[in-house]
Structures are given as C-alpha cells and as structure tokens.
C-alpha cells in the first residue's frame, strides 16, 4: 500500500502542504491534475528523489519518509522513459538485479520473464536510440519491474505516444500491474487514461489532494 500523511513537498519556490492519500495494496491509483499543479513533485517525493519537508510516507506499512530512493522498493517510470542510452534493452531489464549483484543465471531468467511479459523478446539486443515510443515505454516498465518492487510509480508514461500506441500501452499497463500485483500510482492529466486505468482516483487542485468518487 501507499500512504501519504500530511506530507509537505517542495520544488524550488513551489510547495504543497498537508497532502494525504492512500492506495490499498495491489490497487491502481491515478493522480490527476493540471500541468504544473505539483503531480510530479508528489511522485518524486514518494520515490525519494525529493525530501518530504513534513509528514509521513508509508510504503506497505513501513515508514519510508527518511529512506533513500534505492531503499524504498519502488519501480519508477518517468514520462520520457529516461532509458540509459549506452545500454541494450537486455541490460536495462536486468539492471536492478545487476546492481544487487544477483547471479548471472537469475538475471538471465528474469530478463526472459520480463521480455515475455512485455512482448519485447525481439528487441533485447537493441539500444534505446532505435526504439519506437511504445517500445521505449515497455522497456522502461520492464526495467522498473526487474527487482520485483511492491510499488510502481508512473509519471505520465503515455504522454508521448500516438493514439494507437497509447491504447496498446494502456491495456498493457493494466494487464501487467494486475498480473504482477503491484500497487501503482500513475500521474496523468488525461481523464481518458484515468477512466481506463484507475481503481482509485485522486485529483490535485488548489494545493490539495482529494479523492474522487469512482
């Protein structure tokens, strides 16, 4: 589960305070709001990329407010994918295990499993430069899921995709998150995306996060 309790976040001169939200374990939460309303700042604070100035962040019941990003067990997919340009897709899919010094056979098995789950077996030896937008998002998702995180944070992952790919990746996200059983927070400004994906929907408005009735 993901729980923010009266959290204050800040990015430069911008700040939001008293943010609270809760996403039950295994649910797909969507956080909506206008551009520059602070959605990404909330997500980055949850991931440990920005410090919470006040309040508590609970991840699966554990207080993660002061934990480093690497210790939170969160898979993070930014809007542009932010793939590592010097690495192949295969290395992306095994990177989190490689960092944890997992045995090579464990990494190989996990890469094969993720590639099959995401339908990217054919591009494992390619580098990000030659991939389409949809393929890049699949790789970014696979990279985030590599170490079997219990929480997944997606920052407008469908923002750069064309209409057909958008629909395809949307369905993939829903299927993968269900199959993996990961608790997800998906940030978007698209109502359509929210309606397609959300188990619980939140809106950032006038500096506050409110839950929208399903």
């Amino acid at each position, binding site marked *: 589960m993901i729980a923010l309790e009266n959290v204050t976040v800040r990015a430069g001169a911008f700040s939001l305070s008293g943010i609270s939200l809760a996403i039950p374990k295994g649910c797909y939460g969507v956080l909506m709001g206008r551009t520059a309303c602070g959605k990404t700042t909330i997500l*980055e604070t949850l*991931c*440990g*990329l920005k410090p919470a100035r006040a309040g508590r962040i609970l991840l699966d019941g554990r207080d993660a407010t002061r934990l*480093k*990003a*690497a210790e*939170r067990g*969160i*898979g*993070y997919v*930014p809007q*542009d994918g*932010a*793939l*590592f*340009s*010097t690495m192949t897709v295969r290395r992306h899919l095994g*990177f*989190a295990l490689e*960092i*944890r010094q997992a045995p090579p056979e464990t990494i190989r098995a996990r890469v094969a499993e993720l590639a099959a789950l995401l339908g990217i077996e054919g591009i494992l030896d390619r580098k990000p430069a030659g991939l389409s937008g949809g393929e890049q998002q699949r790789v*970014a998702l696979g*990279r*985030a899921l*590599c*170490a079997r995180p219990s929480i997944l944070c997606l920052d407008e992952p469908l923002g750069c995709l064309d209409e057909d790919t958008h629909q395809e990746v949307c369905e993939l996200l829903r299927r993968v998150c269900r199959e993996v059983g990961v608790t997800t927070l998906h940030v978007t400004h698209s109502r359509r995306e929210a309606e397609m994906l959300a188990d619980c929907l939140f809106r950032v408005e006038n500096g506050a996060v409110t839950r929208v009735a399903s």
Partner: protein
Amino acid sequence: MTVAENMPVRVGTREFYRVRSGAPFIIGLCLLSSVYLVLIVALLLADLSFTTQSNFLGALRSVEIRYGIRLSLITCSITALLSLWIAVPIGYLMSRHCFRGKTFVDAVLDIPIVLPPLVIGLSLLILFRTPAGRFIERFIPMTYAVPGIILAQWMVACAFAVRTMRTTFDQISPRQEQVALTLGCSRSQAFWQIVLPQARRGIVAAGTLAWARALGEFGPILIFCGATRLRTEVMPTSVFLELSVGNIEAAVAVSLLMVLAAVAVLLLVRTFGQTVVN
C-alpha cells in the same frame, strides 16, 4: 465600415504576397565569413611557402628541437590526463548541484581563461616563493624544472577541460540518474554506471582540447620555467629561441609541426564534440 473591412482578403495568395529571395542574405553571410577563413588559410599557406622540405627535415634533425618536441608531447599528455582528473568531478558538481556561492566558484574557474598568460606565470613564480610553495619544492622541484612546465600548462588547460565537461554533463539528463537511484544504485554507482559511459565522448573532447591548449602554452612556461635548451624547452619555446637567434626557417618548421598537431586535435574534438551535442 472600417479600413480593414474595405481591404481585399487576399493576403497569402500567390499573386499578391511574394517572399523576397534569400540569396542576397546567404551571399552576404558567406562573404563576411570568408574574410576570416581566407586569412587563416593564408597564414598557413604563407608558413608553408616560407619553408622547404630540406629546411623542415633539417630542423627535425636538430637535437634541441627534437628534445622540445619530445618534452612537449610528454608534458601535454600528462597535462591532459591531470586536467581530466580534475575537470570530470568539477564539471559534474557544477552541472548537478546548486550551492551557496556557486556563481563565485564559477567565476573563479574562469580566471585562468581570462588572465593574461604572463600573469599566470608570474603568479606561479610568486606562489612558489611562499613558505607553502617552498615546502612543495623540497619534494617536487617546480621553478625552472619540467614539473613546473606541466603545472603551468595545466593551470590554463584544465579551465578549458572543466568548461567542456560541464557542458557535457549539462547535456545528459539527470532523470536517468534519478531512475538509477530508484533501481537500487548509490550516487556513486549512478555516476559510474550511467553518467560516465554517456560522457565518454565529452571526456575525449575535453582531453584533446586540454592537450591542444597545453601544446600552445608559452607565456607561463617562459616566466615560471625559463627557456633553457635541452632542459625546459617545449615546442613554443623552440620557436621563440630559434627566432631570437635569427633562424627563422627552423622556427617556421617547428610552427608547422604545431599547426599539424593542432589541426589533428581540432578534428578529433570536432568529431567527438559534435557527437556529444547530438
């Protein structure tokens, strides 16, 4: 009825709206640019026409000049490596971190670029007259010695390498490092595994630029290390010494060697630098 309503709405149709040819603008740009380019090429051609193959080979046979070339190649290579050793961490820090006094630090880093070379040499000389400088010289002789040549070259070359590395890191999105942190990397792992491999072309560009700057350095070396033959003689010193005894052919021959080295290095920098930008 207003004036606008009386006007025919035909703006943009072929018979009324025509754009002037861009040719005069482009020709003007080319003419202005060619003045400078022609001057550079003329300088090189003049050098080439001044010397003959026998003069050139004769200069290369001189023991002093060969010593100068060898010492230049060695000191420039060490300077380039030392510059990178410092430029990579400074460039990364300045690119990724905001801290109090950053503008001041940024300005200090540019001082070696804007200071006259003679002033750098004089400042080094004064520095090594202080107790701290004398203490260092007890272990590594600097004034009028080869390590001093490297220090004098490094003072200027490193500033250029720092600029190049900062630009390189600015062009690499910090988002990738952030993703690496969430994947389990420490800050240093994210740097070594994600940032540095992407910066490798920038590192080559910074290293070659530092090497080229070091090759052309003369003022600080003359003041700090003197111009002693077969001791502190690097290629620019050879040009100076040959000129001072009236041996212009040998001076031009060494100059041409430096031009060749500079062109080769600049081509390398352009190739790698362009890829960094892309």
